[in-house]
């Protein structure tokens, strides 16, 4: 896409991305396709940053004021037209630095609220939206006492971790104490890159039965444009809440989809979000739609690859166009149906071998299988873990076939995971594969 005025210098984007992001390639490729010059802000500079000082900036996502000062100083020499965070890690900094530079962005207070599950609950409750009962506790509180205060079934979750990490269901006080203590242990073992703890608070909320869906949308001057509604056909009833399959378009009746869209719009308005991508998660049951989360970012991991628009534009292209105030390319889906499966880690151990990849790739409708953990690496399942073994992508003429392809492909995969003491002596079979496109694991937020 061309800039709005041929004589104007091309608009310039600062992309904030954690070093462990999955999204770098997609955003940089999108910028390249659109002809948009980019600078990258990350916790560490890459090895060749000296060759392109205008294109790289080191920022600490946890030192918001210091990082904002750095971005403002950087922008004086290298003018910026917008700041986009590729993931959760940088959304608050993007908002704060945008404020400082007078760039269009959702208000920082709204972004902060959306990043915090407790504040999200408060905002949604204040707006009169359906939301589970919720209480916030400290990791230092006595779970035995809390167990008497909460209703069952309930869900314990950290305020800040992502990808369902640390989220557990409890059906009675005994399970609650176990889940609470387990989450405390998880939180005490997770630090930000600078060594500070990720959080010391725990949210306990009522378990909402029902089908779970995700909404991918874009806010433009406060107006919500829904890009996709994903069904999650695997039941997410606990005890852990491992994401697996997302399929779009939704197969819920039109009136339910309208309610999903309406609830999403109400939620972003309640939080005060006005610009940029949003990713909402909600449950739908006979009472209606229950918002679980509205994140001021796009869908995580490699999942955005399941979405293509118009003549094969990516979600990242739309995000950059919106951020710069450019007209969006077509937002019509490029195919009738698509899906993605996050391949769950079945057990803890050392990943020794991956089998059946070629066979899985041959399943009709499978577009790509992207493995993300290399052989030899330790793997940890939920709730302690935060990774997936990889992603399977499908495209088909309807959502039923897109889902079936994902399940069939997954059934052909076999991951050999062994205890560390057995892993060293394991000899891969004939179908062992290397991971050619390994990306390091996501860090906790």
């Amino acid at each position: 896409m061309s800039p709005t005025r041929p004589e104007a210098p091309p608009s310039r984007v600062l992309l904030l991305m954690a070093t462990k992001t999955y999204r770098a390639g997609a955003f940089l490729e999108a910028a390249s396709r659109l002809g948009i010059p980019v600078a990258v802000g990350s916790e560490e500079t890459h090895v060749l940053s000296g060759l392109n000082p205008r294109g790289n900036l080191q920022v600490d996502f946890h030192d918001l004021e210091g990082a904002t000062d750095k971005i403002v100083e950087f922008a004086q020499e290298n003018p910026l037209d917008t700041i986009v965070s590729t993931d959760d890690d940088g959304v608050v900094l993007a908002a704060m630095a945008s404020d400082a530079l007078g760039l269009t962005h959702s208000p920082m207070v709204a972004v902060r609220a959306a990043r915090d599950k407790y504040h999200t609950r408060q905002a949604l409750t204040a707006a009169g939206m359906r939301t589970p009962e919720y209480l916030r506790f400290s990791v230092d509180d006595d779970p035995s006492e809390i167990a008497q205060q909460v209703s069952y079934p309930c869900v314990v979750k950290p305020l800040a971790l992502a990808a369902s990490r640390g989220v557990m269901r409890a059906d009675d006080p005994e399970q609650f104490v176990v889940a609470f203590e387990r989450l405390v242990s998880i939180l005490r073992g997770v630090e930000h890159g600078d060594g500070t703890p990720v959080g010391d608070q725990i949210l306990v909320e009522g378990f909402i039965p029902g089908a779970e869906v995700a909404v991918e949308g874009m806010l433009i001057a406060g107006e919500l444009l829904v890009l996709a509604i994903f069904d999650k056909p695997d039941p997410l009833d606990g005890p852990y809440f491992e994401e697996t399959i997302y399929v779009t378009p939704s197969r819920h009746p039109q009136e339910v989809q309208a309610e999903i869209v309406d609830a999403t719009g109400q939620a972003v308005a309640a939080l005060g979000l006005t610009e940029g991508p949003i990713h909402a998660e909600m449950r739908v049951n006979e009472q209606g739609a229950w918002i679980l989360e509205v994140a001021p970012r796009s869908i995580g991991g490699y999942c955005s690859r399941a979405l293509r628009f118009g003549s094969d534009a990516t979600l990242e292209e739309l995000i950059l166009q919106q951020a710069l105030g450019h007209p969006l390319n077509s937002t019509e889906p490029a195919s009738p149906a698509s899906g993605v499966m996050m391949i769950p880690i079945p057990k803890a151990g050392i990943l020794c071998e991956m089998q059946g990849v070629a066979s899985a790739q041959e399943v009709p409708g499978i577009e790509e299988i992207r493995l993300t953990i290399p052989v030899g690496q330790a793997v940890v399942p939920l709730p302690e873990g935060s990774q997936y073994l990889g992603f399977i992508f499908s495209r088909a003429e309807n959502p039923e076939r897109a889902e079936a392809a994902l399940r069939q492909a997954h059934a052909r995969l076999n991951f050999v995971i062994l205890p560390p003491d057995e892993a060293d002596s394991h000899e891969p079979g004939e179908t062992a594969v290397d991971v050619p496109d390994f990306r390091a694991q996501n860090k906790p937020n």
Partner: protein
Amino acid sequence: MIEITDAAQEKLLEIQNSREEEIVGLKVAIKGRGPAGFDHSMQFVVAGEEPEDAVITEAGELRIFVEQGSVDNLKGSKINFIPATGVFDIENPNPPFVWDDPLAQQVQDVLTEQINPGVAQHGGWITLLNVKDDVAYIELGGGCVGCGLVDVTLKQGVEVAIKASVPQIVSVVDTTDHASGTNPYFQQSKNDPHHQADKGGQAPASPFA
């Protein structure tokens, strides 16, 4: 063109004769370039699957199929077999970072002088595979593979540096993930055990196993 030591010839014939398929020769090619020089590949050629464009040469009792694009860079090479380690080794006297194509040579110079010294500090290297239609095809090695910032390094470092020094280059394509089938340029042969393994298929037994 290519010399094979007696030890290598003996071992190759031993392996060749142990195979069930009818082996008609050995295909040798330059697969890439690494920090230590050329990266060679050797594969047995099964009857009926002879490469059409290869240059055929005889070395003792062995027929060698030299891949067309590798002929110049394999001249004077010698295939050794080291019994103590059980591995084959190709001594190649040709300079690995010299290209006939002046445009490729300019890109190579940027890699050699500006990029690889920095990348090497993190245990990695970047290899130029080819320049075709003003597009530079590169491959990552060592510490670059799996680095979380690799896409940033490529787009914000490698590509910027190459385009700044060689404006004729319109794009830099990373082929490191070619085995996933996403890259149309760097197609490996179906009989390459490494390729088959990467694709998760039934890897044919290596001729050197």
